[in-house]
């Protein structure tokens, strides 16, 4: 109950900010931060709970984005339809990849997901309808009331997507799915022997995770009013999703939120003050530092601090 009240409060506040006369740049930066939060949360459902590393975040994200573009160009579909369709396609991709590689050890799944990024990118580069390698300029429909600009409207949209992602991650964690996934993470053999349907659980997690990433990708073309394969399938999304979860802490749905919030805010500051390359470098360095020195992430550090101050 407390959770749903805070969700309602957050959404009302978001709407308030979107309608207030805040500087446009704020929405630009906030969109980036909320995307990172939603992607990390989605990644954590399979990576954090079950311990299967998915390097393919851009593949799922990109499938969502390109689904949205196709629907928009072909039927002029409205944004909510694009997002739902992006989620469905992301989920289907998750099911396919999972079926091929989730039977194997985690490392093979991880490499398989890298393969999916490049296969999707190659397909899109060779598909003329969506602009091929050079990309496609999109003419955005007029912005819906009550929002003044696209940045404000999409800020609200991505906030809703992020809230849905977090709520699903929270539900999965506390349900039988989450318990099964944790059993898989601790010892897959032991889980299998005690009757946990490991493959089915991993597939469910992969579909949910992929679907959410697809939903996050869907509003991106509208946001940029442009789509192009190289930046859509950029490995920067992989490191953002992975980094957010690992730095925040993978055992709880709150971890990716904290990690992604810290990481992407830092990235925005560095991009503005230093450069775009350095911001990715910082994420890489932080990722390695946390993985080695604080494997439980910020949440783990916080718990340790609580225990020692008692």
């Amino acid at each position, binding site marked *: 109950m407390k959770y749903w009240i805070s969700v309602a409060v957050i959404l009302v506040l978001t709407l308030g900010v979107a309608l207030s006369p805040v500087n446009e740049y704020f929405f630009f930066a906030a969109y980036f931060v909320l995307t990172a939060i939603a992607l990390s949360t989605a990644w954590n459902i399979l*990576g954090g709970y079950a*311990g299967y*590393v998915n*390097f393919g975040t851009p593949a799922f994200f990109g499938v969502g984005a390109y689904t949205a573009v196709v629907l928009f160009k072909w039927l002029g579909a409205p944004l909510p339809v694009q997002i739902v369709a992006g989620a469905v396609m992301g989920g289907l991709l998750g099911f396919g990849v999972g*079926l*091929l*590689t989730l*039977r*194997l050890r*985690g*490392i*093979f799944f*991880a*490499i*398989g997901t*890298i*393969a*999916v990024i*490049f*296969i999707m990118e*190659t*397909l899109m*580069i*060779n598909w003329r309808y969506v602009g091929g*390698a050079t990309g496609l300029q999109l003419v955005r429909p007029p912005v819906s009331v009550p929002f003044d600009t696209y940045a404000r409207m999409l800020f609200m949209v991505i906030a809703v997507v992020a809230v849905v992602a977090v709520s699903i991650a929270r539900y999965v964690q506390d349900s039988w799915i989450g318990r099964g996934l944790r059993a898989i*993470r601790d010892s897959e053999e032991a889980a299998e022997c005690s009757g946990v349907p490991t493959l089915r659980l991993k597939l469910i997690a992969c579909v949910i995770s992929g679907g959410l990433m697809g939903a996050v990708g869907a509003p991106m073309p509208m946001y940029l009013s442009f789509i192009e394969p190289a930046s859509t399938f950029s*490995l920067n999304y*992989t*490191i953002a999703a*992975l980094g957010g979860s*690992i730095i925040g802490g*993978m055992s709880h749905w709150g971890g990716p939120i904290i990690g992604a919030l810290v990481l992407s805010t830092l990235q925005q500051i560095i991009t503005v003050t230093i450069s775009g*390359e*350095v911001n*990715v*470098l910082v*994420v*890489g*360095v932080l*990722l*390695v530092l946390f*993985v*080695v020195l604080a*494997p439980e992430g910020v949440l783990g550090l916080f718990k340790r601090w609580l225990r020692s101050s008692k």
Partner: protein
Amino acid sequence: MIFSLDLLTEAVIFGVLLGCFYAAVSIGLSVSFGLLDVPHVAHPAVMILGSYFTYLLANQGLDPILSGVILMPAFFVLGVLIYRFYYESFEKRGSEAGVRGLAFFFGLAFIIEIGLILTFGVDQRTVRAAYIGSSWELGDYRIPYRMLVAFGVALALTLALTIYLSKTFIGRAIKAVAQDQGALRLMGANPVRIKQWAFGIATAVSALAGAMVIVVGPVEPSMDRLYIGRTFCIVVLAGLGSMTGTLASGLILGISESIVLMFFGASWAPAVAFGLLLVVLGIRPQGLFGR
């Protein structure tokens, strides 16, 4: 699509050369991932690092392949350090090394790549040598000398590593560590030191592989991403840790990529390695020449 026997022959000839080159760039991974079971996704990044060091040495007037050989001892030390760090931080602790070990190597690859971008910029770099830019006319076919040089070095490297692993004492110890680490410990040997040595060898080989990469074509920092697909495809297809299998799988990938390149165009070629990898993982994860 124009199909003719002539073009097919040309594609196959080029594919064989390319395949040997691919086998050579994968053989380090075949040791580190195939034999030692280290999830070394930073292998291609380390190799591209080798290409850039080759570029620096070659600019001083050295032959690029010779530069690669000169770099090998330094890369051996680098490999030992990387493994030592990985062992102390992840392998020793045991639990959950899967996610964190992978994240570590992925982060390492990113750091190397961005480091290269910050130092050298995103422009393509090339080296100069007598055999780069000219080609050998063989009847109707033209075979670039740079591919022949890479082919020769690749064969020599694969052969040397195969002999090293099967005939020398330490080579056999490396194979033993891959088979049963516990048994090795009972025999009074230290598996960690053997693995450290093997990882050093694998990294040293990557330096020479990196030199070949820059001989074969221009190099840019983000190139390691494509080689993740090629190298892992070959190592998995070979069956983990098989050296002759690595050569055979390299040829399979090289010929298929060359045929796709010839008949479908360059924009489809990168997908071949990744597609083949997914198919192998789905159908025959133990590889063609698996133990």
